[in-house]
């Protein structure tokens, strides 16, 4: 528990989640306007934001949300239909609430006024269109027992700490009174003697007979905030009996009032009929089930990082222990060391697991994006998603948001044709974007596919030639051409729409993905659509590496880049340095001697090995002295003082506590190529 947490921050976090729920509900509602569960979900989210907003001092938020809620209540009562127009305004309102919570000083209250005006106008229109629907319940003043009233008997008690949590039962009772004719009986049976009484505990219980015209859900709404902290029993009472003899309808109250002594000895519901017990038990079980569902805690990401560091240290200390234990052979020590080794690795795996979150939260955001895109572009777009449960490192999910937004935008804006063109091509008028995430080995694949026009290789070529990105008439395979769209300064869009002009090009997308050690594949079929697939490692925190030795130093090569390992033949090793090529199954692969690259003095080992790595389609061999084996470890970034060293993407700590650098394969290759070119030109001068 974080005791220093600013309560306002807690509210911000909570409301962010609630707003997300609200958005999802609204978007779903657009698809299924009749779904009452969705309307209730949206309403509940609003109600909670209003309540806790007021509690945490976000008065403006509470005020606006209240207005919004009242308007939305009419949807709930069936007085207005959740048509697309209403959903659009509701989404705006949701954005406004979010802005008010996150950046109150930058948010103009006028926007809120406009949104509310829009809402009212919509309802006014709805009323004008369907005047018959409205009068029923809205026209009826609440509280007056009319023809269609029902009488309810309520019994409720709160958890003892309900007052400490900021709830006020008196206000709840007032709210009940507001619903209709109310008879309240209070029980003091649980109140202990003064000496044992906790001053801030709530010991009272209430029985209420309520006659109202509202549906039963109105009662639940009153207790919405405290539902988890109380036992509530509601039953409908026969109208006649309630009117005739309210006393007779409240045996619980009667018994308790009549015999306080005996009630003090028994549980307070003791006088109630047996079914009430069962009901209570049922309600309790329901509450506890709810608790299980939501038993999560919030932990700041930095704490996880800190724990990860500690676990990293533990792994190192444990490796030393194992070494010592094996050396001294001191009987039991070895067994304990093995036990600790097992525990440590389990702990590390668990730690990694904590950082993983399902990608669904990210996908959720794109539904809104597609909804807005569909409206702004005037194209009908369906979004389907799959694999929401696929887990990915939390930090990666955050970094993926912008690139995916960009790709989806491109898909909607450039990929999908408008309805007319689609009809002409014999496709359904609504475009379709499919967002899929799945695991593939140690990678996560996220693909965005659409059934649009597909990439036009000819146009890409023309554009690339025009921009000087490729030589005119250069022989490029289609796949290579498709990769050109990720180059800086490349855009085939004839006109820049408001959507494309966000300053983020596909080149930035590519850089971001590569920064996460990922890659991008493009598959396209003319007239049938394009699929862009992001390949990402499971986590940024861990690397599966091939550990090699060069002179006395150990280095890790990301295993995803490694294709194969071969021995450097005597002939290849001694051949003139100008021709560093290997023959791998008939294909020439250039190789770099890491000893030279890293300026290691001394003679190389007799039997050097070559690790063949591949970047895109370029294969290069890295000559090392020894291949030690695969090694999974936590990635540590290098400090700013080593930012000028491009050969390494980071460092990792080995079992013996030593640091091994992680090779940045793409940069190494560039470095080696530069060196080779220099060497070639100097030998040319020599000759």
């Amino acid at each position, binding site marked *: 528990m974080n005791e220093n947490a600013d309560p306002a921050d807690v509210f911000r976090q909570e409301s962010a989640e609630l707003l997300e729920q609200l958005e999802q509900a609204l978007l779903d509602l657009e698809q299924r306007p009749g779904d009452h569960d969705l309307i209730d979900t949206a309403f509940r989210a609003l109600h909670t934001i209003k309540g806790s907003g007021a509690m945490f001092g976000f008065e403006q938020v509470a005020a606006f949300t209240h207005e919004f809620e009242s308007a939305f209540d009419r949807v709930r009562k069936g007085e207005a239909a959740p048509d697309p127009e209403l959903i659009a305004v509701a989404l705006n309102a949701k954005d406004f609430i979010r802005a008010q919570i996150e950046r109150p000083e930058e948010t103009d209250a006028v926007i809120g006024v406009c949104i509310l005006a829009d809402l009212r106008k919509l309802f006014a229109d709805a009323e004008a269109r369907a005047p018959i629907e409205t009068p029923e319940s809205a026209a009826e003043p609440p509280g007056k027992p009319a023809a269609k009233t029902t009488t309810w008997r309520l019994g409720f008690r709160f958890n003892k700490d309900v007052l400490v949590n900021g709830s006020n039962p008196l206000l709840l009772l007032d709210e009940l009174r507001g619903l209709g004719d109310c008879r309240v009986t209070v029980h003091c049976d649980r109140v202990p003697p003064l000496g044992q009484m906790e001053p801030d505990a709530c010991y009272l219980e209430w029985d209420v007979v309520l006659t109202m015209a509202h549906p039963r859900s109105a009662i639940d709404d009153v207790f919405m905030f405290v539902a988890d902290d109380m036992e509530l029993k509601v039953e409908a009472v026969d109208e006649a009996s309630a009117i005739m003899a309210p006393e007779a309808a409240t045996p619980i109250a009667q018994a308790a009032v009549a015999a306080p002594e005996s009630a003090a000895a028994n549980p307070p519901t003791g006088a109630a009929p047996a079914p009430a017990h069962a009901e209570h038990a049922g309600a309790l079980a329901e509450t506890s089930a709810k608790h299980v569902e939501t038993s999560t805690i919030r932990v700041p990401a930095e704490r996880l990082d800190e724990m990860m560091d500690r676990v990293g240290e533990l792994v190192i200390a444990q490796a030393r222990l194992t070494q010592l234990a094996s050396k001294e052979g001191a009987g039991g020590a070895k067994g304990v060391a093995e036990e600790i080794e097992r525990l440590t690795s389990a702990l590390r795996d668990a730690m990694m697991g904590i950082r993983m979150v399902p990608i669904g939260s990210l996908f959720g955001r794109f539904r809104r994006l597609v909804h807005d895109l569909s409206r702004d572009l005037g194209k009908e777009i369906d979004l389907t998603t799959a694999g929401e449960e696929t887990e990915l490192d939390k930090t990666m999910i955050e970094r993926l948001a912008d690139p995916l937004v960009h790709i989806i935008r491109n898909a909607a804006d450039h990929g999908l044709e408008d309805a007319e063109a689609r009809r002409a091509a014999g496709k359904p008028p609504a475009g379709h974007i499919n967002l899929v995430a799945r695991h593939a080995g140690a990678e996560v694949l996220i693909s965005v596919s659409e059934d649009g026009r597909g990439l036009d290789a000819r146009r890409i070529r023309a554009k690339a030639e025009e921009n000087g990105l490729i030589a005119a008439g250069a022989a490029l395979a289609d796949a290579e051409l498709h990769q050109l769209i990720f180059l800086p300064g490349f855009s085939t869009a004839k006109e820049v729409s408001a959507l494309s002009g966000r300053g983020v090009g596909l080149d930035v997308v590519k850089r971001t993905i590569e920064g996460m050690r990922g890659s991008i594949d493009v598959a396209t079929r003319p007239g049938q659509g394009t699929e862009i697939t992001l390949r990402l490692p499971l986590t940024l925190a861990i690397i599966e590496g091939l550990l090699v030795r060069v002179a006395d*130093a150990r280095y890790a090569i990301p295993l995803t880049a490694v294709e194969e390992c071969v021995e450097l033949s005597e002939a290849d090793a001694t051949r003139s340095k100008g021709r560093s090529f290997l023959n791998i199954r008939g294909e020439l692969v250039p190789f770099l001697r890491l000893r030279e690259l890293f300026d290691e003095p001394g003679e190389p080992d007799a039997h050097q090995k070559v690790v063949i790595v591949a970047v895109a389609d370029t294969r290069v061999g890295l000559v090392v002295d020894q291949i030690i084996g695969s090694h999974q470890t936590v990635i540590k970034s*290098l400090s*700013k003082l080593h930012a000028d060293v491009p050969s390494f993407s980071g460092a990792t700590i080995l079992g013996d506590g*030593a640091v091994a650098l992680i090779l940045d394969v793409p940069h190494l290759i560039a470095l080696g190529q530069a060196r080779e070119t220099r060497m070639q030109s100097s030998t040319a001068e020599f000759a």
Partner: protein
Amino acid sequence: MTEVEESSRQVLMLGLAGEMFALDARQVREILDPIPVTRVPGAQPYVSSVLNVRGKVIPLADLRVRFGMPPASITPDSRFIVVEIELAGEPTTVGIVADKVYEVTDLDTSTLQKAPPIGMRWRPEFIAAIAKWKDEFIIVPNMQQILN
């Protein structure tokens, strides 16, 4: 260094190639016996390696290179001093090699002088001040400049 005026300041005294240096004690996190380091090929010579300090990989700076002193190997007296300094607005943990660590002492700030612009072997921007301590001249290095 822009400090509030104080009459004395706690410093860690260390020896390097026969010279005495004083590091602001508030920057010092810990002092380690030498442990194996890993060379970073292609790095600047004054930060040529990294080491593992409690699960963190930090750079190891050699002030000798910056002060034009001859290289020396690690001896049993050598120590790695872990300091935290602000580089480009971010606190950065760096190890510094010392031939010997003497003591933490109070340095009378009235003896602090600006480094003379001439008559020195060292680049003036690397020196925050020259101080006097027990009849000896002490260099207060400007770590921000040295590691820049």
